[in-house]
Every structure is written in C-alpha cells, then in structure tokens.
C-alpha cells in the first residue's frame, strides 16, 4: 500500500517544464514547455458529425468546457450560415457567466492567492485563513450550480449544441439561485477591495493586448478581435493578424502577431480594452479601485479577474431575472459544405476555432487556438524580464517566483497538472 502515488491519480500528463540557460550571469535562453491537448483533438474531430464537436471539445479543459463549446458552436454555425435567436444567445451568455464565476474564484483564491500570501498551497491558506477559502468555495459553487441548472451537470455541461440548446432549462431552479448570486456579487465587490491590498511583485511590461470586443456588452461571445495597437479584425480574419507556429522545444504551438510581436490575451487585455462595457457595479468597483489603466503588471491580472467577477455575478443576476424562454431552443440546421471561424473569450483568454465541414456535416478540418498557446511566448518573454532577479535567488525561491508568474497567467495547466520543474543551466 505504501507504493501507491496517491497525489498523481493519473493526472500527471502535462507537467510543465521551465528551462533557463545562463551565460555571463544573464539568461540567454528560456523555454517553457507545456503539454497541450488541443493538438490531439484537432485530429480526433476529423470525420465526426458537427453536433458531436461541442461535447468533444468540452473535454479539452476541466475548468473551461463552456469556452470550448461556445467557440466551436459559433464556428460551426458560421459554416452553416446559422444565426441563433436572442433568447438562445442570452442563455449562452449566462452559461458563460457561470464558467467565469467558477474559474475566476478558483484562480484568484486557490491558485494565485497562496503565492501572494506566501503560503505553499490552498491547503495552507485554509489553515491560516479558513474563512477566505470557505468564501472562495462558496463563490465557486454558485457558478457550478448555474452550470448545472442550464447544462444538466456541473463539470461537463451537455445541453449546449450547434444552433443553441437541446432544451430550454427550467426557469425555477435558475431563479432559485438569485439570492446566492446576490451574495456572490457582494462577495465579489469585497474581493476587489481585498485584491488591492495584496503585495504584487513589481513588473511592468509594455504588452500588446488582444481581446474580443463588442460595442454593446463586455466582449465574451461575438464581436471583433481588437488589439491595443489599433488592429481591429473580424473573427473570420483572425488568422491574418495572428499566426501560430511550431517551436522545437514544445508540443504546444506558439502564437505571434503578423508583425512578429508577442501579445497578451486574458483578463488584463479584456479589462484594458473593454472596461467601458463593464456593467454598473463592476464599473463602480473599477472606479473606486483608482487603478491607472492600462494595467501592465501580469501579477495584477488577479485584480482584473476580481473586477470581472463583479461583472459576471451582476450579468448573471440580470440574465436570470429576464429569463423567460420563448421560441425554439435551437435553430434548425440545413447541412451544406462550408467553412467557419468562431472566437469567444475563455476566462484565460481568446479561444479561436475554425472548421471545414462537408455536405453531410462531417468535420474535414479543425483548428483550435487556445489562449495558453497564444500567451506562451509572452510568458517566456516576461520570464526573460524577470531572469536577472531569478539569477540572484536560491533555487527554491527562484522556482516559486517563476511559478507565480506563470500561474498569474492562469494557463490551462495550472489546475489540471502538477507544476514546473525549473532547471537553470550555466553555460559559462
């Protein structure tokens, strides 16, 4: 019995590796290697019927299944020239609110806060500040409950499909969650205040921010891909501005802009580009925080997440209050050969899908560009900026500092796998 490795429980694939090569006291090479499942899924989807795609891609990530469902649904609807009805769209936003609530509460309190508070893990945080962790679990659970009420189950919701929903969820269980969501909204406001008191390391980076932008709402589904450098592209032209490339050391693809620069996607990008579209309580939280935008410190994406938490509780409450399902739950699909691209904002950044389908609705080609692949080169560049500090630290402190930076990006690996193995190699 002593030989069993309980913590592994088979969830070991995808250890991240970080390698820093040093010459004359300076970092000359940095490689972050992260295992990434979408590559497998692109092949796995070929030949499948389009309606299977949302459910299959939802399995790519245990934390953001909704993002994969939504990006694939929009891409496939584009290929079929289908537009969903306003009530279908509103319920999609609500499903997404639930995912943001769940994902952000997890990341803020249980993944990044331990780094900022100087404790090794959420378990240790629970020992010194049990009320904080209890509150976090309660905040997160509300997201689960909303997902379950719409999607049938909380981990991999099964109700979303190309064209809309298999069935309208009952209104009563959703409305019953309103008091708990109201509690969550207040907790999120407190979370913003608390987030401002945390000791973030100094690091300011002149990022190019990239996020989905929608003129009438906080950009999550549909809209244009905006860059802080002024590039504005319809989703269908995403690949003309942002290129994915294979790099030798990683089985994850790395992205760069068409100009060759690296860019940042995720909560900082969204807040900086889309703060005008936040809902009123989130606007107020942002104003009261007296932040100078754009926020350029990657560690402070925690603050952006906290403000987004306020927004998504607020939006979820508004959507549930207005929820009165009417008309068909999904659009009728007329199959034809075609191609379509879709992008939505996963909690950790822009998630782009493109599919080609044949006249029977079978997938001929699939391309999935997850946020973590887009941010990888950016993380490596940030680590270069951090390297002089790391060089002066003991191995353990250096590993923790590097891990914290990577974790602040909320990469897909941060929850599903064990973490970094840091190797610093001198070439002198």
């Amino acid at each position: 019995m002593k030989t069993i490795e309980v913590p592994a429980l088979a969830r070991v694939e995808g250890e991240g590796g970080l390698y820093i090569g040093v010459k004359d006291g300076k970092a000359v090479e940095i490689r972050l290697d992260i295992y990434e499942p979408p590559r497998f899924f692109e092949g796995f989807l070929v030949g499948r019927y389009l309606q299977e795609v949302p459910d299959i891609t939802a399995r790519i990530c245990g934390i953001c299944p909704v993002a994969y469902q939504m990006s694939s649904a929009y891409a496939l609807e584009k290929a079929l020239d289908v537009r969903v009805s306003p009530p279908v769209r509103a319920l999609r936003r609500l499903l997404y609110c639930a995912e943001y609530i769940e994902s952000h509460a997890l990341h803020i309190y249980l993944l990044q806060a331990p780094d900022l508070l100087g404790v090794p893990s959420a378990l240790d945080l629970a020992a010194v500040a049990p009320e904080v962790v209890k509150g976090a679990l309660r905040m997160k659970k509300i997201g689960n409950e909303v997902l379950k009420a719409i999607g049938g189950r909380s981990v991999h919701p099964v109700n979303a499909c190309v064209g809309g929903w298999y069935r309208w969820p009952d209104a009563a269980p959703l409305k019953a969650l309103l008091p708990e969501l109201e509690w969550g909204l207040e907790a999120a406001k407190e979370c913003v205040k608390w987030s401002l008191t945390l000791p973030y390391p100094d690091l300011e980076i002149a990022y190019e921010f990239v996020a989905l932008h929608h003129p009438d709402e906080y950009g999550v589904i549909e809209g244009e891909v905006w860059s802080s450098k002024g590039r504005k592209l319809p989703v269908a032209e995403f690949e003309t501005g942002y290129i994915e490339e294979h790099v030798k050391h990683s089985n994850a693809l790395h992205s760069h802009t068409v100009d060759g620069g690296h860019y940042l996607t995720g909560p900082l990008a969204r807040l900086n580009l889309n703060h005008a579209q936040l809902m009123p309580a989130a606007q107020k939280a942002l104003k009261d925080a007296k932040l100078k935008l754009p926020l350029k410190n990657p560690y402070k994406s925690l603050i952006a997440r906290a403000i987004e938490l306020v927004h998504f509780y607020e939006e979820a409450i508004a959507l549930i209050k207005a929820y009165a399902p009417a008309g068909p739950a999904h659009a009728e699909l007329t199959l034809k050969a075609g191609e379509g691209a879709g992008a939505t904002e996963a909690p950790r950044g822009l998630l782009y899908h493109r599919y080609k389908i044949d006249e029977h609705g079978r997938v001929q080609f699939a391309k999935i560009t997850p946020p973590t692949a887009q941010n990888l080169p950016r993380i490596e560049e940030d680590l270069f900026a951090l390297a002089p500090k790391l060089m002066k630290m003991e191995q353990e402190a250096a590993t923790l500092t590097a891990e914290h930076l990577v974790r602040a990006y909320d990469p897909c690996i941060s929850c599903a796998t064990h973490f970094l193995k840091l190797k610093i190699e001198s070439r002198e």
Partner: protein
Amino acid sequence: MNILVLGIGQSLRGDDAAGLEAVRLWRETHPQTARRVRVETAELPGLALLDLLMGADAAILVDAVQAAAPAGTVIRVGPDELAAFTPDAQSAHGWGVAETLQLGRALDPALAHVRVTLLGIVGKDFGMGAALSPEVQQALAEAAERIEAEVQELLAGERG
C-alpha cells in the same frame, strides 16, 4: 445511510477512463444495488468533488491510479489511509483527489465525517485517444465486484 459511488476519469485518455468504465459495468451487472445508492461519474471534478460528496455518509471513489504494481491491479485505499495522506507541497497546486478531500475536511465538518474509500485501478497508458489497455479492460470485472462488495458491506452495516 447515504452512499455515493463515484467513477472518476477522462473518457478520451486511455486507462484514465478505468474508473468510469468500472462504475458503468457495476451498474449493469448489479442494477439492484446501484438503485439503492447515488451513482455519479465525473471526468475532471477538481474541487467539484466536494460538492459531489456533500450529503454522503460514505463514498466509494473509483479512479485510475499510477502505482508500482502491474496494470490492472485493483488497489483499495481505506478511509483511514486516505485521511492520513499528506500531499507534498510541490504538487499542491494540482487538484488530486487526496488534496481536495483534505481541503474539504479542513474547511467543512460535514465533509470530515464522510467515510471515503478509494478503489484505484492501476493503469499504464494515459495517452490522448488511447483505448483501455487489455490489462485494464480485463480488470474491470474484478473492479466491479469490488465496488459491489464495498457497497454491500456499507449496506450491511446500515442494517446491523
């Protein structure tokens, strides 16, 4: 007594699906027993495990494990052994079952009283898209009987 049988694992990752498949098989072969308890499956439950455990007096988790034992071996980790398990700090950001249980118990007295037993099926191939290895496939029948035995023992305790 509220008993939960929970199969955990990712269906598209080879032997990682062992827990899901074992619970499915048990349900098929022992439908009468399955009707008397709560049966759930979860692909990557993470912290939602705590929500799944809520309200249970006893839980049997069935999951694939990596261990220094031949593939297909079914290992039982009883409630006391699981409770005593301490995750090492290096892996505490991952959300393994043991860490999650410990977090839940630290925070919620209701969870501290759930008697959790883990039936681990030793896997060898966790590749994306892989099928169950023949060893694990063969072990499913034994795993299903072990689930049945665990549930029967709990139900007998209820009567006694």
